[in-house]
């Protein structure tokens, strides 16, 4: 018992002693390195801000300079040699290091010796590393886009390194709904770079693409559920790579809300987005998709009104749905004949069965609506005949007047008749 009672103060003494000893270590470093004018032989600054270091996550955890700069451990001869070994974070952060080594950054650094590739310090900083949860950290959600864009918006780097993607592409994120939520509302759970690409284990695009719906579905669970119910998502689950993934309609970095005129799923752009596949000859042949959807839409009243800026009219999604689009043969599809009247009725209250009859996507072919085709032909002929008649009569009239005038007729001079 007495031994145990003695043990506690002894332990405490040891701990305090250790702390002060270490404290002395760091203090020794700062005798030189806390000087803002201290420079090395190449003129590079040797300054380390002691206050910021003290606030850093490593200092807070009680680490000394030598915890990272291990080649200085035990050095007693000051000043120490100038060139130090590169700090190896994996001593503590082995999992992160392993992930990074397998990532696009780590592979470039390791396999190609690419010095431009992002290493630990490029994103996290070095002496003043803050916890990820600290709003000042460069990898805190609000700051992460700017951190990644330091390289990924740099066009000279983009040209230099294949696979970095086009620099303007990543910058598009800043205009996206995700970035706006992050920036304007401080919504830190909004998607940033790492939400989709990962952080340490960033993979090249071909490995990343196939997982996109699941990636988006991590936040947009309801939409993912709708998507896999629809024909596109069901095919995706079967491994079909012809179907649109989230990014095919919404864009990648530049995802905007549907009511944004710039958004690809805004009514203005939507028809063009759908027709990228639905006007595609080879896809049409492969899956038996009917062609001419876009043209027949744009010549309909809805399409015309949309072209002239009326956003209230029906677009593709108004009738076909969007995330869970089903073929018209599906009884649950809004364009199934049994549901058409109700679908029209969403905008045209009380639309009855008659309203929904007949082909919707028509291109003026006789078999679609013979009456309309005949009327159109008849009118064209009538207009041509009438205009021809008008022009003929007027020409004749003017020519006759001229002739009468030159022949000395007095029809033009006035109504008097010479007896």
């Amino acid at each position, binding site marked *: 018992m007495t031994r145990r009672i003695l043990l506690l103060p002894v332990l405490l003494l040891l701990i305090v002693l250790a702390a002060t000893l270490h404290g002395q270590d760091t203090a020794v470093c700062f005798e030189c390195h806390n000087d803002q004018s201290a420079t090395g032989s190449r003129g590079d600054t040797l300054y380390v801000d002691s206050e910021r270091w003290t606030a850093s996550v490593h200092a807070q955890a009680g680490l000394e300079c030598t915890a990272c700069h291990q080649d200085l451990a035990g050095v007693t001869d000051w000043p120490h040699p100038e060139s130090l070994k590169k700090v190896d974070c994996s001593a503590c952060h082995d999992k992160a290091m392993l992930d990074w080594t397998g990532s696009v950054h780590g592979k470039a650094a390791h396999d190609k010796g690419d010095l431009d590739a992002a290493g630990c310090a490029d994103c996290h900083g070095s002496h003043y590393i803050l916890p990820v949860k600290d709003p000042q950290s460069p990898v805190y959600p609000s700051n992460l886009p700017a951190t990644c864009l330091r390289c990924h918006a740099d066009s000279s780097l983009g040209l230099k390194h294949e696979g970095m993607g086009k620099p303007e592409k990543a910058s598009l994120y800043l205009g996206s709904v995700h970035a706006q939520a992050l920036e304007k509302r401080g919504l830190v759970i909004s998607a940033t770079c790492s939400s989709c690409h990962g952080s340490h284990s960033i993979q090249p695009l071909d490995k990343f693409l196939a997982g996109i719906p699941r990636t988006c579905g991590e936040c947009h669970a309801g939409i993912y559920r709708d998507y896999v119910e629809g024909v596109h998502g069901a095919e995706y689950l079967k491994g079909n790579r012809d179907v649109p993934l989230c990014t095919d309609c919404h864009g990648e970095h530049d995802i905007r809300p549907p009511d944004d005129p710039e958004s690809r799923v805004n009514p203005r752009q939507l028809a063009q987005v759908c027709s990228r596949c639905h006007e595609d000859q080879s896809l049409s042949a492969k899956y038996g998709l009917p062609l001419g959807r876009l043209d027949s839409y744009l010549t309909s009243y809805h399409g015309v009104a949309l072209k002239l800026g009326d956003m209230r009219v029906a677009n593709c999604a108004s009738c076909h749905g969007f995330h869970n689009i089903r073929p018209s043969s599906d009884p649950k599809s809004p364009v199934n004949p049994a549901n058409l009247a109700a679908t029209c009725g969403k905008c045209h209250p009380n639309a009855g069965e008659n309203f929904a009859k007949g082909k919707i996507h028509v291109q003026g072919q006789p078999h679609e609506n013979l009456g309309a085709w005949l009327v159109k032909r008849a009118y064209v002929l009538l*207009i041509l005949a009438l205009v021809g008649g008008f022009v003929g009569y007027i020409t004749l*009239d003017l020519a006759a007047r001229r002739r009468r005038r030159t022949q000395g007729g007095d029809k033009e001079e006035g109504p008097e008749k010479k007896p």
Partner: protein
Amino acid sequence: MSAREDEYADRLVEHEGRLYYQRFSVVQRVQHILLFSSFFALIATGMPLLFAGSPLVRHMFFFEGAYELRGLIHRVAAVVLLAASVFHVFYVLFSVRGNSDLRRMVVWIDDIRQAFAMLSFNLGRSGEPPRFDRFNFIEKFEYYAAAWGSAIMLATGACLWFPVQATLVFPRPVLDIIRVIHGFEAILAFLAVIIWHMYNVHLNPEVFPMSRVWMNGRMELEHLAEHHPLEFERMLRHIPADMAGRVRAQMGVHFPSGPTVSGAVTT
């Protein structure tokens, strides 16, 4: 077709000391103004739909809500045209002047003959133009074209305005046909007005740059005597003798001579 007793009571009007034939009364002129102003508003707000792809049309719709405004103007103008049309039907049936003009507007075999006579005159095969009555075959054609066109456009337009109600009567493919009719009839009407009517009342050397009859309703007696001799003569027969004398005195050398003018009393 006996002319009514009071048919010419107000057709000879005095203006600044001169006599004129009153071609259109104030009520008729107002109807014409309503007709063409609503017509042009309808054309301007309807044609863009037929040429939605053209850059010119896109420039028309440069501001927010332009399309909604287009629809609003189109429908307001349609109601104006409908009101003018309904009024016109009552006017030609129940007003003295409207009914008198309607009777003269009836197409007879004579109109066909005169059309051919005009053709042969213009081809130089006959030396004299046909002698027209109050309305010649061209004017009658225009009148019926306008009436027919308005009726078609109003009927089809109403169906397009209220598609849900229209499809209670017929299935939607018929509505598609109606849309085709509405568009093509509009083109037809526009071309008729732009080519035919513009020539007859603006560009025709007879009236260039513009006939003013639609504004003041007055027609020169000389013009009437030359272009509507039958109407001129009938008027002389139906107005008091002293007025007929004034007409003759005013026209002087331009007064049509010969046996055609009966009842013209010289003083």
